[in-house]
């Protein structure tokens, strides 16, 4: 039974038709020729960057094409049936009974008009797996197993009444309820905060193990997939790069691309000693949006010349608000900001042009950080004109220098943002910040919208620029791996408060406070067995309390 093959996909081809405005429809090949198989009770991790075709391929395992996606060639054998040939009625009998699906955004995947229980038991009832009472019983047991609070009551709630992490667990329960042979997990933890992610991940893993269901687990994060998979399949541009056991892929990847994925975020950065003259001192800053509830409470940090302060926290920690307070977009209610020995005015309008020039900002979404109607030349050139009055020849020359600094040729100068890739856009934003010759650049989650390898390139560029130009960074992120790679000092924030602050070596060394401990231990590590270690140590810790 255990060695029996459950799913066998042969020579799968996936196409989609796209309709570019004003042009003829084009056929796009998403997956050219892909084969894989899965044994009963096994978990296959499918990994790749955005656009690698991983979700599309996994959904094809249910013979489903999202949007205009077609499956023109290949075979998908599930339990002795070729799903691509059985016809609609038979396919409906398979979906929701033999194969179930867990979507990335449970918030969108639940129907807002029905209770959770109605939706969880729907497939079981539809396929006549069991009667309603049995199904509800089963659902409650699954809620319990997945660690949901009030397992016998939560089913009466509506989707908008529970949190994102809980909803993701309910969705897993929904997939498990009809006791299928196979579940497709489509990035089930990507939208969650890092400390929530680990709990959901552990719950999913336990549930898979206890029920003996097979699974395809899709993610862009190799460290996550390494925790739950028996085998891993690496995809790129719709083609198979490497397929092996989880152990082999993580510990001895054969292909160059896989090696790069495994060693991602392994940038080594030697911590620099703080100087006596910080470039920026944030003193006792308290800030609130409109009303009276402070989103920043009494924050004091310093940034030293040529160094990086990483500000770490989850959503709602106030880390981006700190950036807005420093730039003057949200004048602090209390406290001062000293920059280069002088006190900056709290409000943006009262700051001098030099104050503005010396603090620059780079945003998370490079797409919306650049005016889509301006060329790269205008985007980079404007600060040069505005602050340094550069014109003509001198302006062009400086623009080219900046483009070279960000490792892009001057051929890019006359392109529009829409004609650049994600990584290139972020590089142009870096050049725009550099153009002002700032002393401090605030980087707000600059790598979190990028694929891991591209993000690594951006981090390396930022470190190079720091070494060359001596600029300081305030690096806002939720990703501790990034912090380790780039920071000299670290500030950990939680619900508007500074929980822990100091040089990197001290912040990342025990003894930890509870929150930092939780945060640090939640970052997925690129090795097998990490999840078990963490959950075990957490259980021990909570048992000790």
């Amino acid at each position: 039974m255990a060695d029996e093959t459950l799913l066998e996909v042969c020579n799968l081809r996936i196409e989609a038709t796209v309709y570019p405005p004003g042009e003829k429809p084009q056929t796009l090949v998403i997956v050219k020729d892909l084969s894989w198989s899965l044994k009963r009770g096994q978990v296959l991790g499918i990994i790749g960057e955005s656009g690698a075709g991983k979700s599309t391929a996994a959904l094809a395992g249910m013979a489903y094409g999202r949007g205009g996606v077609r499956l023109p060639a290949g075979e998908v054998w599930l339990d002795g049936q070729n799903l691509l040939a059985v016809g609609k009625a038979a396919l409906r009998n398979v979906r929701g009974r033999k194969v179930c699906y867990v979507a990335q955004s449970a918030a969108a995947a639940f129907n807002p008009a029905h209770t959770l229980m109605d939706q969880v038991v729907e497939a079981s009832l539809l396929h006549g797996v069991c009667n309603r009472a049995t199904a509800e019983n089963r659902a409650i047991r699954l809620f319990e197993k997945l660690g949901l609070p009030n397992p016998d009551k939560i089913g009466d709630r509506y989707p908008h009444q529970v949190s994102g992490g809980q909803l993701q667990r309910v969705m897993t329960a929904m997939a498990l309820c009809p006791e299928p042979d196979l579940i497709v997990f489509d990035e089930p933890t990507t939208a969650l905060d890092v400390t929530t992610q680990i709990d959901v991940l552990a719950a999913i893993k336990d549930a898979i193990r206890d029920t003996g269901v097979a699974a395809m687990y899709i993610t862009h994060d190799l460290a996550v997939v390494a925790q739950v998979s028996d085998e891993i399949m690496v995809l790129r541009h719709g083609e198979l790069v490497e397929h092996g056991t989880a152990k082999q892929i993580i510990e001895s990847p054969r292909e160059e691309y896989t090696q790069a994925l495994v060693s991602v975020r392994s940038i080594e950065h030697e911590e620099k000693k703080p100087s006596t003259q910080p470039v920026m001192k944030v003193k006792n800053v308290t800030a609130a949006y409109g009303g009276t509830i402070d989103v920043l409470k009494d924050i004091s940090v310093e940034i030293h010349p040529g160094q990086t302060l990483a500000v770490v926290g989850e959503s709602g920690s106030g880390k981006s608000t700190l950036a807005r307070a420093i730039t003057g977009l949200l004048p602090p209610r209390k406290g001062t900001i000293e920059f280069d020995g002088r006190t900056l005015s709290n409000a943006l309008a009262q700051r001098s042009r030099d104050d503005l020039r010396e603090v620059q900002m780079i945003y998370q979404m490079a797409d919306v950080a650049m005016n889509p109607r301006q060329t790269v030349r205008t985007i980079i050139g404007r600060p040069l004109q505005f602050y340094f009055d550069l014109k003509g020849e001198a302006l062009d020359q400086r623009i080219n220098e900046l483009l070279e600094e960000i490792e892009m040729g001057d051929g890019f100068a006359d392109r529009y943002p829409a004609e650049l890739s994600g990584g290139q856009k972020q590089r142009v934003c870096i050049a725009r910040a550099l153009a002002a010759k700032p002393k401090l650049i605030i980087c707000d989650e600059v790598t979190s919208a990028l694929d891991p390898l591209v993000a690594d390139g951006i981090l390396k560029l930022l470190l190079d620029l720091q070494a060359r130009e001596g600029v300081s960074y305030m690096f806002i992120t939720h990703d501790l791996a990034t912090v380790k790679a780039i920071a000299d000092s670290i500030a950990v924030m939680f619900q508007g408060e500074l929980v822990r602050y100091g040089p990197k070596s001290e912040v990342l060394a025990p003894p930890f406070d509870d929150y930092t401990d939780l945060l640090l231990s939640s970052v997925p590590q690129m090795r097998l067995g990490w999840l078990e270690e963490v959950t075990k140590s957490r259980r021990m810790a909570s048992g000790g309390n």
Partner: protein
Amino acid sequence: MGSGLWTLIIQRLLMGLGLLLAVSVLIFAGTQILPGDVAASILGQSATPEALANLRSDLGLDQPAWKRYFSWLGGLLQGDLGTALSNGKDISASLGKRLGNTLFLAFWAALMSVPLAILLGLLAVRYRGRWPDKLISGITLTSISLPEFFIGYLLIYFIAVKTQWLPSVSTVYEGMAFADRLKAIALPAITLTMVVLAHMMRMTRAAILNVMQSAYVETAELKGLSAFEVIRKHAFPNVIAPIVNVVMLNLAFLVVGVVVVEVIFVYPGMGQYLVDHVAKRDVPVVQACGLVFAGVYILLNMVADIVALLSNPRLRHPK
């Protein structure tokens, strides 16, 4: 149902009432404060100053504007809309009959256009991107650009004059048999239907597409539900509110479209009544008609809003 929802609905009702009051001020101000003198326009250019002054005091025009507004509003609340300047008849009585005729016409136009629009909208979604969808959207684009009288006279020319299937003039009178009445309003009702159909269908299509492309519909498909079940259980509960909204907005649009259509078919409704008295500069009638039209318009918009509130599960089941 949560109390929060009731608060919102009551708020919306009060807002509608407030809006109606504000609109009455606006309509009153629009006719009273702007240049032009009712008395002068009644008596014409040959009027003597004494006659003018007499008429002014008869009409209460020598009173300050706010006083006149409140006495007008007071009358309104008691169902007294005053008398027409042009013929001295009681406005409430003439208006009541004509409002009945207009609503009769609008009702039958709605009865034809709403199911047709929803059906065509569904069809466009079902065959999205294929020729039925393209055909429907092409016709939509065209018919949005057509003036009401073009459709109206085209129908009269071909259906009433050339083939003589239906009457070209929609005469209705009291005691008329129901079937004859229906026959009389057939052409104007068809015209109105064509005027609002395109809009309603386009908006219905967008509303349904929005729901059909949502992740929860995909979830339902992946549970193995049949297309019919997906629509019945998962799309329908979420699509009702936007469709009702669309329908209400278009009924509001239809009630306004009635004005021109009634003139085309010489139909004795509110629109015809309003237009006649604008030409005669009979201000009290114009005010009354304007307020009734605006009231119906505001009411339909309010119903649309309340339906949207009622069908929002976030409001129905608060945290």
